[in-house]
C-alpha cells in the first residue's frame, strides 16, 4: 500500500496529486489488492457486485420454478421460497445495482470524466470497497447460520420479520441488518469521494455544465444515497435492537402461540416510514446513474449532441429533490390518513414530469441522428422502451384507488421489475459494452453481444408483460403456491409456466454474456483508444487501459462541452472535450468578437464562442 506524503501547508491544484512518484503503487498487492486506484477499486466493486448478483439471479430462477411448477421440486419449501424472495430482492437492489452503479461505474468514470488523477480520498475509497465486501460476506454468511437467511421479504417489515413463524427470524434478520449497516458505512466512505471529486477535482475548463450527464447522474444519485441511507441505517439498528435485546421500537404488544411477548407498544408503521424514506430515493439512486449513462450512450452512438442538456441537468436535480417527498406511496395500504394519500399521489404524479422530460429528450436526440445500431445503442434504445412501459404502470399505482386492489398482486412485481430491474440492467449491459474497451483495451464480441441483447430484451418482455395480466386477475405476490384458488383460472397457471420458461432462458443467456466478458478479455479485437469516437475525457487518455494517474504527465484542459457531435464543417463528426480551437479558429475569435464573422462559422472550426451569452 502506498501513502502520499501530506504537507498541509502546500498548495496542490485539486485535480493534481502531490509527489506522483510516491503516489504510484510499487507492488502487485498495492496495485491490485489493497489498491487505492479508483479504476481498480471499480473493477473490484463490479466483480463483487456481479458475483453476488449471480447468486440473486439463481435464486430468482428457483422462485420461478416454484411459481411455474408448484409442488414439483421438493427442495423448495415454503420457508425456502420466502428466503429466496427476500435475498433476491435485497441483493439485486442494494448489493448489485447500487454497488455496481456507484461503486463500479462511479469509481471508474468520475475521475476519468472530470479529468482527475483519482478520487480525492483514495485511501478512504479503498476502505469503502473492503467494507462493502465485508457486508456482502455477512449477507452470504446468513445462508449458513441456523435458520438460514431472513424470509421477511426485502422490505423486512416488522413485526413478522422477527417473529417465530418467519424463517430466519433469529440469525438471519440480525445478519441482514448488520450487513446493511456495514454496507451503508462503506457506501458513505465511497460517496464522500464521489461527491467531493466532482465538486473539487475537476480539471481546468471542466465547469459543472460541461460535465457529461453520466457524471451528473452519478453525482446526484450519490447525494440522494448519502442523505437517504441513514434512514435504512437507523431502521437496521433499531430492528437489531428489537430482535436481539428486546426493545420495542417497532414491535407492538403481541400474543404468539398463546404467549404474551415481551414487546409493547412499538410501531410497525414507523419502520415503514423509515424504510420507504430510504426506499423510494433508492429507486432514483439506481435510476439516475442509468439516466446519465444512457444519455451519453445515445448521444455517442447517434452522433448527435444531447437534446436539451440544461433541461436534462435540471430534471436530474428535480427528480432528486422530489424523490424525497413521495415515499408514502408505498404505504397506501398501511391505513394512512386519506389526505396524506392525496398528497403523496400528487407528488408521485409530479415527479413524472421531469422524468418524462428526460424520455422526450432521449427520443429527440435520436430524432434524425446518425444512429449506429451498435450493441450499446441497442441496449440504450431497449432501456427507453422499457422505462416508458414501466413508468406508465407507475402512474397506475401512484393513484390510491388503483393501488389498493393491485398492491399485493403480481402487477406490482411486474411494474417495479420493468422500471427498476430491467431498465437499469439494460443500461448496465449497454454501459459495459460501451466502456469495456476502455477498461480492458479490447472490444466485446459483437455477435455474442447482439445475441445477448435480443434474448434479454425480448425475454424480459415475455416475463413481465404477462405478469401484469396475472396481477389484474388478482394473483397475489409473495405466495409460495396459489393452486386450488377459485378466482384464479387455469390459464393463469399456464401463463406462469410460460413466464418461468422465459425467465430460465433469459437467465441462461447471461452465461453467454459472462463468456463474452472473459473470452474478449483475452481474444477480443484490440480497441484502440477511442473506438466509439467519443468526446469525453476518458476516451482521450494517453494509454488504454488508462494507467495509474489516468492522464500521463499533464492533466487535460477542457475547451468545450461533452456533446460536440456532427458539428457542421468540422473535420470529423466529433470534437473531443480537450481539443483546443484550431489556430485558424483562434484567429477568428477576434473577428467573432468584432462581429466580422458569425458564430456558425466559428463553430464549424471548433471554436466555442457565445452567441451573446455569458462569456
Amino acid at each position, binding site marked *: 500500500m502506498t501513502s502520499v506524503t501530506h504537507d498541509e501547508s502546500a498548495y496542490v491544484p485539486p485535480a493534481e496529486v502531490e509527489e506522483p512518484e510516491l503516489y504510484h503503487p510499487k507492488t502487485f498487492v498495492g496495485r491490485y489488492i489493497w489498491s487505492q486506484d479508483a479504476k481498480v477499486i471499480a473493477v473490484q466493486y463490479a466483480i463483487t457486485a456481479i458475483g453476488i448478483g449471480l447468486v440473486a439471479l439463481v435464486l430468482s430462477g428457483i422462485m420461478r420454478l416454484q411459481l411455474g411448477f408448484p409442488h414439483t421440486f421438493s427442495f423448495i419449501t415454503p420457508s425456502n421460497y420466502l428466503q429466496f424472495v427476500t435475498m433476491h430482492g435485497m441483493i439485486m437492489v442494494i448489493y448489485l445495482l447500487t454497488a455496481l452503479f456507484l461503486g463500479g461505474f462511479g469509481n471508474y468514470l468520475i475521475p476519468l470524466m472530470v479529468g482527475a488523477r483519482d478520487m*480525492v480520498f483514495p485511501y478512504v475509497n479503498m476502505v469503502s470497497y473492503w467494507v462493502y465486501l465485508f457486508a456482502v460476506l455477512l449477507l452470504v454468511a446468513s445462508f449458513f447460520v441456523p435458520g438460514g437467511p431472513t424470509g421477511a421479504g426485502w422490505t423486512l417489515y416488522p413485526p413478522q420479520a422477527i417473529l417465530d413463524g418467519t424463517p430466519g427470524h433469529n440469525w438471519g434478520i440480525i445478519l441482514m441488518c448488520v450487513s446493511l449497516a456495514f454496507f451503508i458505512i462503506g457506501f458513505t466512505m465511497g460517496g464522500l469521494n464521489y461527491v467531493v471529486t466532482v465538486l473539487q477535482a475537476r480539471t481546468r475548463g471542466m465547469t*459543472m455544465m460541461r460535465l457529461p450527464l453520466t457524471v451528473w447522474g452519478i453525482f446526484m444519485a450519490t447525494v440522494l444515497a448519502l442523505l437517504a441511507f441513514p434512514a435504512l441505517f*437507523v431502521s437496521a439498528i433499531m430492528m437489531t435492537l428489537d430482535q436481539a435485546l428486546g426493545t420495542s*421500537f417497532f414491535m407492538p404488544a403481541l400474543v404468539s402461540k398463546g404467549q404474551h411477548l415481551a414487546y409493547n407498544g412499538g*410501531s410497525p408503521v414507523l419502520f415503514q416510514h423509515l424504510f420507504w424514506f430510504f426506499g423510494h430515493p433508492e429507486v432514483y439512486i439506481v435510476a439516475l446513474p442509468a439516466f446519465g449513462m444512457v444519455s451519453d450512450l445515445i448521444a455517442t452512438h447517434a452522433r448527435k449532441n444531447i437534446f436539451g442538456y*440544461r433541461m436534462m441537468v435540471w430534471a436530474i436535480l428535480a427528480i*432528486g429533490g422530489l424523490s424525497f417527498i413521495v415515499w408514502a406511496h408505498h404505504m397506501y395500504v398501511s391505513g394512512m390518513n386519506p389526505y396524506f394519500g392525496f398528497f403523496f399521489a400528487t407528488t408521485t404524479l409530479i415527479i413524472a414530469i421531469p422524468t418524462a422530460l428526460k424520455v422526450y429528450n432521449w427520443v429527440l436526440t435520436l430524432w434524425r441522428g446518425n444512429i449506429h445500431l451498435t450493441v450499446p445503442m441497442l441496449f440504450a434504445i431497449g432501456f427507453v422502451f422499457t422505462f416508458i412501459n414501466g413508468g406508465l404502470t407507475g402512474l397506475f399505482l401512484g393513484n390510491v384507488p388503483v393501488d389498493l386492489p393491485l398492491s399485493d398482486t403480481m402487477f406490482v412485481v411486474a411494474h417495479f421489475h420493468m422500471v427498476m430491474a430491467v431498465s437499469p440492467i439494460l443500461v448496465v449491459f449497454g454501459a459495459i459494452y460501451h466502456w469495456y474497451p476502455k477498461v480492458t483495451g479490447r472490444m466485446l464480441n459483437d455477435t455474442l453481444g447482439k445475441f445477448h441483447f435480443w434474448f434479454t430484451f425480448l425475454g424480459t418482455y415475455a416475463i413481465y408483460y404477462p405478469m401484469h395480466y396475472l396481477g389484474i386477475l388478482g394473483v397475489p405476490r409473495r405466495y409460495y403456491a396459489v393452486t386450488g384458488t377459485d378466482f384464479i383460472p387455469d390459464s393463469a397457471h399456464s401463463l406462469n409456466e410460460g413466464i418461468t420458461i422465459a425467465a430460465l432462458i433469459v437467465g441462461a443467456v447471461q452465461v453467454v454474456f459472462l463468456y463474452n466478458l472473459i473470452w474478449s478479455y483475452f481474444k477480443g479485437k484490440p480497441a484502440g483508444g477511442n473506438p466509439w469516437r467519443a468526446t469525453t475525457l476518458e476516451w482521450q487518455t494517453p494509454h488504454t487501459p488508462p494507467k495509474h494517474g489516468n492522464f500521463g504527465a499533464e492533466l487535460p484542459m477542457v475547451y468545450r462541452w461533452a456533446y460536440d457531435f456532427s458539428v457542421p464543417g468540422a473535420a470529423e463528426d466529433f470534437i473531443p472535450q480537450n481539443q483546443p480551437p484550431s489556430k485558424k479558429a483562434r484567429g477568428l475569435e477576434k473577428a467573432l468578437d468584432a462581429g466580422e464573422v458569425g458564430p456558425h462559422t466559428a463553430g464549424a472550426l471548433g471554436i466555442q464562442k457565445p452567441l451573446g*451569452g455569458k462569456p
Partner: protein
Amino acid sequence: MTYALLVLVGIMAIVVWWLVRQTVNVKPWMEQRPIEIVDGDGALSLPPVKVGLGVFLAVATSLFALLISAYHMRMLGEDWTRLAVPRVLWLNTGLLFLSSVAMQWTQAAARRGQIDGVKSGLIAAGALTFSFLAGQLWAWQQMDAAGYFLTANPAYSFFYLLTALHGLHLLGGLWVWGKTTAKVLRGVEVGKVRLSVELCTVYWHYLLLVWLVLFAVLLHAHT
C-alpha cells in the same frame, strides 16, 4: 418525518443554490473558454478534505434528524413514559461545551503559528471530551442502577440509542484528534497540523450543536 424533511429541504436548497451560482444557467454548447483558463473551474476555494467534512456533516445531520423524527413518532405510543434525565447530563453538557471552546482556542493558536498553544489546546480539548464520554457512561450506569435499562421503556431505548450514536461520532473525532495530537507531540511544524485542527474544530462545534439539540429533545420528552 417532518424534522427529517425540513433538514433535507435545507440541504437540498444549499445544493441547488450552489449549482445556480455555478454555471447551471449558462449555455455550454455556446460557452467561451479562453486558452489561459485558470485552475479550479467553479470549485470551492477550500481544501477537498474540508468539503468532504461538510458533506459528511450533511450525512450525519440526516441521520440525527431521522432519529429525532422517529423519536417523536414513537412518543405518540401509549406506553411512552417520562424520561428521568440524570443530572450528570448537565455536567456533561458543560464539559462538551468547554471542549468545543478549547478546540476553538487551539484553532486560533494554530492560525497564529503558536505550536505550544496548539499542543496545550489539543490536550485540553481531548481531556474534556474523554471526560464527557466518561460522564455519558456514568449516566448510563446511573439509569441502569435505577432500573431503567434499554428495554425499560422506549423513551429509555431512545436515550441509549441517541447517546450511543452521538458518542460514536465523538470517538471518530477523537481518532483524528489522536493522530493530530501525536504529530504535535512529535514536534511537527504547526503548518502541517493547521488543517487537521481546523477540521477538528468544525467537527467538535457540530457535535456540540447536535448534543444540545438531542439534550433539548430528551428534556422536552421529560417535561
